[in-house]
């Protein structure tokens, strides 16, 4: 019998590509022989805009890269700028930053797991997940007035201090989240069909994972004991007791379990951060004309300079974002605007491994593997 190859274009508008990604599949029946990823449908020229905006103006754009976990994006950029300019950050601000980033990590993993399950056909998980996400977003909103795009972390500190009653509310949310986590695990982990769909699918060995430049939960799912928070400790992470969650298998199920474990670990971190939250300023006011505003309730509200001029130089600074290594490479020429901003986004680099992972599998496996890589298109195309 003569057979012919089927060329299937999945996307850019397809329910399970998490946005506007396109898979160009060469298929033999249902088996994927070759998967080519076509992207750029959300390429918004953020890096060019970085050259056109001042340092502070660019912070909102970082929110819109990985719009599910915007706070780490804020922080990664601000951290690069702070390193470039040599700004000290007060302890309280660092604690608030870590707290809010870990909260955002939980939110990100909830969305990630939820959309994975939705792609597998079980829509309930995402509904339940978004219920907890919504309450978390209300916390964000209390803190900085925005639900998704925060613009909260600024060079030298954070924009506003914790509002009244924030910590008790957060504690309540954490208690709720722990209960819900048990529900999630009952719904998903014990499900035989879920195991059938996820185990031994999209397997990638540790060696290959490093070679492809995977980072984040995707790499830890392959058994590489790595975490930027451990390898290159930043902020207050050296003082905090936590572990990098790894699984040795390297398949989709391992990556999923790593995410669940990370939610637990993040709750652990949150608890420590809340318990040892110091009092004090939230903005450094030494160098760049940041002066405390008198008369404000907590007397730590401050101005931020509109114009901000770091020294000439270049810096590459990375953090462990929920999706992996997020790095900003900034070249400054000593003016008010960066000379060049390069964003090393985790989604972009993690996506590289998909064609390797799905070789010889079927479309449903492609969706499962793609779901566990956890990609946000804003982050891929920038």
């Amino acid at each position: 019998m003569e057979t012919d190859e089927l060329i299937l274009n999945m996307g850019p508008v397809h329910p399970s590509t998490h946005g506007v990604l396109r898979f160009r599949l060469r298929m033999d029946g249902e088996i994927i022989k070759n998967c080519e990823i076509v992207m750029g449908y959300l390429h918004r020229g953020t890096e060019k805009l970085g050259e056109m905006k001042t340092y502070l103006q660019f912070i909102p754009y970082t929110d819109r890269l990985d719009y599910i976990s915007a706070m780490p994006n804020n922080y990664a950029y601000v951290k690069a700028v702070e390193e470039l300019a040599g700004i000290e950050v007060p302890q309280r601000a660092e604690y608030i930053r870590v707290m809010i980033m870990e909260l955002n990590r939980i939110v990100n993993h909830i969305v990630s797991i939820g959309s994975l399950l939705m792609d597998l056909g079980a829509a309930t998980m995402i509904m339940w997940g978004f219920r907890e996400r919504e309450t978390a977003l209300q916390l964000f909103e209390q803190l900085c007035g925005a639900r998704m795009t925060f613009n909260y972390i600024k060079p030298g500190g954070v924009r506003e201090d914790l509002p009244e009653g924030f910590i008790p509310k957060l504690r309540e949310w954490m208690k709720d989240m722990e209960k819900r986590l048990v529900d999630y695990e009952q719904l998903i982990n014990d499900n035989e069909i879920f195991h059938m769909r996820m185990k031994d699918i999209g397997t990638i060995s540790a060696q290959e994972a490093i070679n492809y430049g995977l980072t984040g939960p995707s790499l830890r799912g392959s058994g590489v004991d790595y975490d930027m928070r451990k390898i290159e400790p930043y902020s207050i992470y050296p003082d905090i007791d936590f572990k990098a969650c790894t699984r040795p298998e390297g398949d989709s199920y391992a990556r999923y379990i790593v995410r669940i474990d990370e939610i637990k670990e993040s709750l652990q971190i949150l608890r420590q951060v809340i318990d040892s939250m110091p009092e004090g300023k939230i903005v450094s006011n030494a160098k760049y004309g940041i002066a405390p505003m008198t008369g404000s309730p907590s007397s730590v509200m401050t101005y931020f300079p509109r114009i901000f001029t770091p020294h000439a130089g270049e810096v590459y600074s990375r953090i462990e974002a929920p999706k992996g290594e997020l790095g900003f490479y900034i070249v400054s020429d000593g003016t008010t605007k960066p000379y060049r901003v390069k964003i090393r986004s985790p989604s972009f680099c993690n996506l590289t491994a998909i064609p390797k992972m799905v070789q010889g599998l079927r479309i449903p496996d492609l969706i499962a593997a793609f779901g566990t890589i956890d990609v946000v298109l804003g982050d891929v195309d920038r």
Partner: protein
Amino acid sequence: MEKGGIRLDPVTIDTTKIKTIKRRPVTAIDKLEDTGMISTILAAREREGLILFSTIDQVFNWARLSSLWPVTSGLACCAIEMMATAMAHHDIARFGMEIFRASPRQADLMFVAGTVTKRMAPRVKKLYEMMAEPKWVIAVGACASTGGPYHESYSVLKGVDNIIPVDVYVPGCPPRPEAFLYAVIQLREKIKNEGYGAKWGLNK
């Protein structure tokens, strides 16, 4: 007697006559003109001469506004808020809109949720063209409405209304789920006043 822009009294249809009349008596449509609701006026103008089908229109409009099935097409950040609108907390299902159809053939409404880049623009347009009439578009967020924060970018289209007609614009970056719901309610109001006899060519 006229109510809500729809003529209820029985009039014999003579389309040639309607075309030749130069000055019409002042109607509710003209009154609408004063309020500046351009889209409503355009819909009403299309309905000029439509008498027989007004009741059918009312029934169909009611059905259409009650069962707006959106097409599953998220472009960027706003898509996450679109998801949040569909989820448990805000529950767009109350309006009967939870059936997100992945196939544009079966959808009535397109949320252009996010930045429309130059590369995506022809695809968005194609998606719109694939949808079956009647269809509506809601431009969600600053990017879809005007280009938003990416207005200066080389690869972003400055407003999706440059390529497809938009019924409701939602401000925000991204808009809150409440804003989505408000946009849906506005669209329902708009559909209430539309006429389809003209579109079908039944009254020509």
